[in-house]
């Protein structure tokens, strides 16, 4: 396999990892908020979090382009301090992070909901702050589920295509991920060159999701 193929594979793994790490703090916080008992506006947040799963990825890409382009709200501010986003590796991280966010939140939320709320209540009656309840009870008990959420988010990030193509372009050696390279090869009529990438991406995602499945708490095994 060519050096170029390996570069693409490692780049994709790297940006997917970065994207997952980027959304981890916010994702876990949102998941915990959603797992708490009912509160006003919860359904709205829950729906908003799910949007990237259902909005066409290219539309998400367009939204990101409008926000982070050089003339966009965030993009122009970042441009002033010398940080380019669009058409750089940062755009690849951004796109995969946004697209992976719902999977992380949904999985972590389910894990938090599994935790018996009475433990938290008891800690509260003993005077523990909300932060302490979260850090010493909810998070440790839901830890496995949170990890599974991160694993699934990583797997989703590995395959991200639509939004990435819009905000990051397909720049060889700079923003070219496995999905983009497969598409590019098909466009160029070099289907055979896409084959190793195809097999590698299936292998990576298969192993990743398998890990996630095995980590998943099963009934009767806890």
């Amino acid at each position, binding site marked *: 396999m060519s050096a170029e193929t390996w570069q693409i594979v490692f780049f994709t793994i790297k940006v997917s990892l970065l994207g997952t790490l980027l959304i981890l703090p916010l994702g876990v916080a949102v998941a915990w908020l959603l797992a708490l008992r009912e509160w006003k506006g919860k359904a709205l947040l829950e729906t908003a979090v799910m949007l990237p799963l259902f909005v066409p990825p290219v539309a998400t890409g367009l939204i990101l382009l409008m926000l982070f382009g*050089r003339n966009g709200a965030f993009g122009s501010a970042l441009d002033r301090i010398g940080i380019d986003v669009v058409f750089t590796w940062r755009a690849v991280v951004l796109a995969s992070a946004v697209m992976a966010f719902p999977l992380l939140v949904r999985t972590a939320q389910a894990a938090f909901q599994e935790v018996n709320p009475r433990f938290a209540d008891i800690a509260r009656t003993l005077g523990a702050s909300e932060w302490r309840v979260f850090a010493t009870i909810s998070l440790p008990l839901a830890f496995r589920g949170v990890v599974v959420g991160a694993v699934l988010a990583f797997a989703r990030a590995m395959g991200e295509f639509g939004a990435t193509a819009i905000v990051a372009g397909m720049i060889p050696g700079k923003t070219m991920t496995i999905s983009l390279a497969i598409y590019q090869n098909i*466009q160029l009529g070099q289907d055979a060159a896409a084959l190793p990438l195809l097999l590698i991406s299936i292998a990576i995602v298969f192993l990743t999701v398998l890990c996630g499945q095995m980590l998943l708490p099963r009934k009767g095994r806890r």
Partner: protein
Amino acid sequence: MDHSQKVDVKTKVLLLLPFFLGASLSAEELTVHAAASLTDAMKEIAAVYEKESGDKLQLNLGASSMLARQIEEGAPADVFLSADEAKMDALEKKGLLVAGTRRSLLSNTLVIIVPANAKLLPERAADLAKPEFKRLALAETQTVPAGIYARESLQRLGLWEKLKDRVVPTENVRATLAAVESGNVDAGIVYRTDALMAKKAKVAAEIPAADTPKISYPLAVLQSSREPERARKLADYLASPPAQKIFAKFGFLPAN
């Protein structure tokens, strides 16, 4: 108001129905694959041709490389208008063209464009090597004609090695134009005809024809055509003075 509009549309459809049914007996739909740079000119020509011939034209616009690939894969099409001879050569070699229908139709030139509000203006191609021009949009430089022409021009000028790491490749030349108009790249190279259609980008410099490979748009009728006679008529029309006049209006040059 909403209700009355609905009735209106329904009535229109009912009134037009016999027309469609009748028309379909004598009119045919022809599919034209045309290079992205021809988008606006072909739309205008199609409107004129449809009125004159009664045939409907379905335009499939995109990078010539993509269109050629679709034709190779068996996409049904009647006429192909490529932005370079190489794509046509490939199709001819595979026996996908109707013999004797291929001809060179148009030519074009390249220009360097920048966003309309840009403060940095390259006066000539060599200025693109300055560090301020961080990103240069080009159509994909291995397969898309506009990108190949641009790369070969920069190679002739001895600039390619310096610039190739700044290139943001796009799917076709209109996407190059769009990237520049969005302000997300500092400059781009497109056909002069694309620059004429630009609203949020302006021409900073022209690349002299002497530094550019020969730009030629060939035309041919495809073997996959189910209406080869009508397709031939359309091809003849595209080469006729009235069509050439419309191409000229959009800035295209005659072949050679």
